[in-house]
């Protein structure tokens, strides 16, 4: 599904990623872990083509996405849902309107948007908050909104960049549990960047550990030891 082949990314003099070789299969749930500055976010940004690698190839369904022209990037991004630590919700829009954004972009009709958004809000457990604004919601609910927006267009891959960063332990487990459920039900590939060892160790998934831009460990049902 996603394959990194000898990928290196340099920012001026700083080496963010070095010689990354990583293969992720369809439907896999993978934790990308490491300390701040280890290169987790860079890795995810390379998949969404927000940035280009300095060298190497990134294959998405067999196609090298480093070579695709700019006008094809939206097509790639429609196959990817993204959840951010800072949520990136539009504060002037209701929860319903925020979740509807990807469908509007895809040109869905109003009636279809209404149905799809209601279904997804029910799935993530915040249907009763549909008409509220993001500022009226608690942290866990906001992150569920962000997840709803990320999965509403049924992406093949779900990227989550520190989705539990601003949440308490209970809400963190709940949010990751939701991502796991989505992955299992829809066979969506999930890549979650985190440095939350508690969450990683609770779910017993594949764990890829980054350190100073290099993969230092890649284990199925792995653990993340921070000590």
């Amino acid at each position, binding site marked *: 599904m996603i394959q990194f082949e000898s990928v290196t990314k340099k920012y001026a003099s700083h080496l963010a990623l070095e010689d990354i070789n990583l293969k992720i299969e369809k439907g896999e749930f993978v934790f990308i872990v490491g300390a701040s500055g280890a290169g987790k976010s860079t890795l995810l940004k390379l998949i969404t083509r927000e940035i280009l690698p300095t060298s190497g190839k990134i294959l998405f369904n067999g196609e090298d996405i480093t070579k695709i022209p700019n006008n094809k990037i939206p097509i790639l991004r429609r196959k990817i849902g993204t959840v951010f630590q800072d949520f*990136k919700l539009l504060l002037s829009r209701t929860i319903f309107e925020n979740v509807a954004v990807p469908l509007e*972009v895809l040109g869905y009709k109003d009636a279809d948007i209404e149905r799809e958004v209601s279904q997804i809000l029910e799935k993530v457990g915040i249907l009763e908050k549909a008409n509220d604004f993001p500022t009226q919601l608690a942290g866990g609910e906001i992150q569920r909104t962000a997840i709803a927006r990320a999965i509403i267009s049924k992406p093949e891959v779900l990227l989550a960049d520190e989705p539990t960063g601003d949440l308490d332990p209970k809400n963190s487990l709940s949010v990751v549990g939701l991502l796991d459920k989505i992955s299992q039900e829809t066979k969506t590939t999930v890549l979650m960047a985190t440095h939350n060892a508690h969450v990683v160790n609770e779910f017993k998934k594949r764990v890829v550990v980054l350190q100073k831009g290099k993969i230092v460990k890649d284990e199925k049902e792995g653990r993340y030891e921070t000590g």
Partner: protein
Amino acid sequence: MKQVKQTVKQLRRSPYQALAAALAMTLTFFVSSIFVILIIGGQIVLNYIEQRPQVIAFFKDDTKETRINEIVSDVKSTGLAKEVKYVSKEEALQIYRERNKDDPLLLESVTADFLPASIDISVNKASDINKITEFVKQKPEIDKVITPENLVEELIKWTQTIRLGGIVFVSTLVAISFLIIVMVVGMRIALRREEIAIMNLVGATKWYISRPFFIEGALYGIVGATIATFFVYAIILFYSPNIQQFLGPIRIFPINPLFFLYLWLAELIVAILVGTVGAAIALVRYLRV
């Protein structure tokens, strides 16, 4: 249609910027309309004057009919005259009566003997007026020659000045409107930066993101051109009796409403062009997708 509604919704969130842009467009196209009407009106006046006799030569009372005919032939033979028309004393009386039909006091004691016979001469070129005037003045039977002097040339100068002034003035206003559109759309892009970033991440194409801004630019143009044409139409309609009275026999009014329809359509095209190109410049300058 959905995007037009969304754009209008966005405009209502910051109405003052939208108002500034729409007002600039309205002013530009209001002034443009006025200049277009002045230029067309000036041309109508010019055509009218050019078609009128430019030299009128009055005969002395005792001039014989045969001699008048000879002089008419002489004038025609110069090749400078487009038309030479003899106006007898009786015809002159008829014209006098027609012009003064509303004033019986002026009609009472006037007979054909009071009025001189004349020849009305239209020239091929305005520059020949002096030559033909000198030619007829040499005839001893001619009592008096009147010419509109350099009226036509003056009018040509005036219409050219209005045209040139109009082009400069309207171009300046179009440039100002254009810059205001670039600025207003640029500010809107900045205000929606976060939303644009999110749209970009969920797979919106550049065109999808840009489209509302193009619609916005076009809307300013449509609103501006429509209000401007409506105001000009209303003003012309209101003042047409006064202007017509001033112009006397030169018939300009009533102006066919179709003229205003064509004016509106032409301005609409230019306004939409100004609005969308302005938006395009703002997008190139400020939108980083």
